[in-house]
């Protein structure tokens, strides 16, 4: 059981190659983190897995429990179990958070089956309490006028509601103060378990102080250049990315 990425190559629409052969295996039950300098291709990797059409996959594969993810549409990938917490979540004016999450849950039900409204709000409120979100939040339009911290918490709320098998968090820690970071980490940690895999993409060590990864990858120049245990984070903290980049190229 894993989200498996093999020798993945992807370019921008203009042909510029961003991913130059990424291989990575995220089994359920584990938290993997990818660190790396700006421009290393970390965020691109998350978007390519989710199916963003601004990128062209030129080689390699992405499979989910053996199924070809690249052959699926964006929404099929989501329903198959891939969730992406966005670095910059889009605003959806006029659509309330509650209605949006409900629509996403409804999309997972067979035709003719309606969501039970009472059960829906009960589970929504439970999760909002855990993330210390105000009840008024349900009626606000998705991400419209949200602070950076509110947007990130909203991403975690959606993730908790949709209960995906694989969660990819793209720079979820950026722009968060320490209190908000702790709340977000609490949400993620509450979801860890044997049936779920995580891929955390981050620029900084500090997220990993709160969510301890099982495996840490370092990405540079569109490739994974090093893989190790949590202790690798300390090494990065001490020596910086340039050291690793040079080591990888040598």
């Amino acid at each position, binding site marked *: 059981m894993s989200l498996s990425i093999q020798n993945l190559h992807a370019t921008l629409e203009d042909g510029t190659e961003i991913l130059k052969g990424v291989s990575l295996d995220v089994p359920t039950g584990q938290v993997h983190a990818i660190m790396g300098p700006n421009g290393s291709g970390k965020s691109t990797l998350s978007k390519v897995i*989710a*199916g*963003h*059409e*601004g990128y062209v996959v030129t080689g390699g594969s992405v499979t989910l429990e053996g199924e070809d993810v690249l052959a699926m*549409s*964006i*929404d099929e*990938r*989501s*329903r198959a179990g891939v*969730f*992406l917490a*966005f670095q910059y*979540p*889009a*605003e*959806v*004016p*006029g*659509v309330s958070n509650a*209605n*949006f999450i409900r*629509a*996403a849950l409804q*999309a*997972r039900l067979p035709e003719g089956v309606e969501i039970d409204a009472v059960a829906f709000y009960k589970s929504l409120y439970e999760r909002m309490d855990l993330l210390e979100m105000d009840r008024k939040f349900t009626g606000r*339009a998705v991400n419209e006028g949200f602070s950076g911290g509110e947007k990130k918490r909203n991403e975690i709320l*959606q993730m908790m509601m*949709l209960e995906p098998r694989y969660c990819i968090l793209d720079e979820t820690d950026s722009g968060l103060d320490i209190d908000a970071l702790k709340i977000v980490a609490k949400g993620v940690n509450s979801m860890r378990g044997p049936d779920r895999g995580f891929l955390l993409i981050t620029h900084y060590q500090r997220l990993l102080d709160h969510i301890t990864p099982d495996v840490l990858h370092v990405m540079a120049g569109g490739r994974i250049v090093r893989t190790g245990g949590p202790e690798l984070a300390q090494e990065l903290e001490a020596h910086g990315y340039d050291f690793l980049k040079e080591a990888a190229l040598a």
Partner: protein
Amino acid sequence: MSYQETNAILDDETREAIDIDRSKGDFTFPERHKYDAGRGLTANTIDYICDVKNDPEWVREFRHKALRVFLEKPMPTHWATRDLENIVFENIRYYLSDGERPKRSWDEVPEDVLKTFERLGIPDQERAFLAGVEAQYDSEAAYSNMKDELRKQGVLFVSSSEGLKEHEEIFRPWFGKVIPTGDNKFSALNSAVFSGGSFIYVPKGVKLKQPLQAYFRINSESFGQFERTLIIADEGAEVMYMEGCTAPKFETATLHSAVVELVALKGAKIQYVTVQNWSSNVFNLVTKRGLAMEDAEVRWIDCNIGSRLTMKYPGVIMKGRRARGEVISIALANTGQHQDTGAKMIHAADETTSNIVSKSISVGEGRATYRGQVHIPRHLKGCRNNTECDALLINSRSRTDTYPAITVRGNRHATQHEASVSQVSEEMLFYMQQRGIDEGHAMSLAVNGFINDLVREFPMEYSVELKRLIDLEMEGSVG
């Protein structure tokens, strides 16, 4: 998603999908008209209509004069679309009826007509939440009734034909006063051949708690429907009137050209709600205007879906001090459609207030045009206008135009104008799709979000229908 791809999907399949949207209204029964004025429009047509309807002499004169005005007036193609030139007036049938008076009970309505309105859900709605209903089938009302308690309070709710004959003393002084015959070519056409529509009078101080509703149904091909509505709310009275319209999809173009006049006397309040869902070959050319006296309020709440071409600019003349006028308008233009809509606000007294909020959505090759006119003359003081018009484009082949004309003279007034054009961005769609929502539903959500604040202005029963119609339009348009 790239816009090119969406364009590529807009093929015959999409057009078919769009047609499904109107499946609810897309059926027809065989014609069995006793009276048929035939094709084309001459003085003889007018006499035929007058004879069948047994019009009083003053109405016959009014119609003949209007015909002359209609024939003299050029098509307004110097500012409006040239598509108007495709209306073939000689091919249109101007009057069709079975010669029956409107029935007070559904049991007496002929079976095909009853079935039509049952399929459209009218008797059910009447039972559920309406104070009265008029149901028009081609040229005449087939059914017209309201609750007994309203009749006892002196409320009148009858067809215009009945109003002008049996309540001439109230009808005639206001008829054609808010919208004169010569206002435009199509108001003249309506004045010449009008038939059906509602006449409503609400006496002083009577406030209707439930809405009155009219439903205008076209059943016959090449037909022109020309209903005429006059609503008078006496001092302190309040009424909400709702109209719905459908027509089956015929091979040839159908013409719908109504005139609606509202009169709100001192302190009265009239709300006029329209949800129209015409099939895609209807020319819908409608003139609607209200007169608001001192402390009175006229609100037009208007939703235009469907039709080939809609031209409609509901207006309010604020003639009394502190009068208020409002137009809330939603237009959705799909491929093959042009929604040319807007509002006219004529301030004619001090401290009058007008508000225009217009939202249009252009899908595929659909075209939406906003035309506004706000007039505040120099000699007045303390007038206020707020105009907001927002357009949403679903892809790059859609088109939207805005022509706001705000004339404010003098410096003792406050006006505010905001306009925006936005697109459903690829990033927004990607975000929604990443949550598992397919493209069609994502579009629907975005569109419903765009008009959400306006949909709330519609009565509950209509807003549900509105949302459903928009969902169908959007699902059909992305394939």
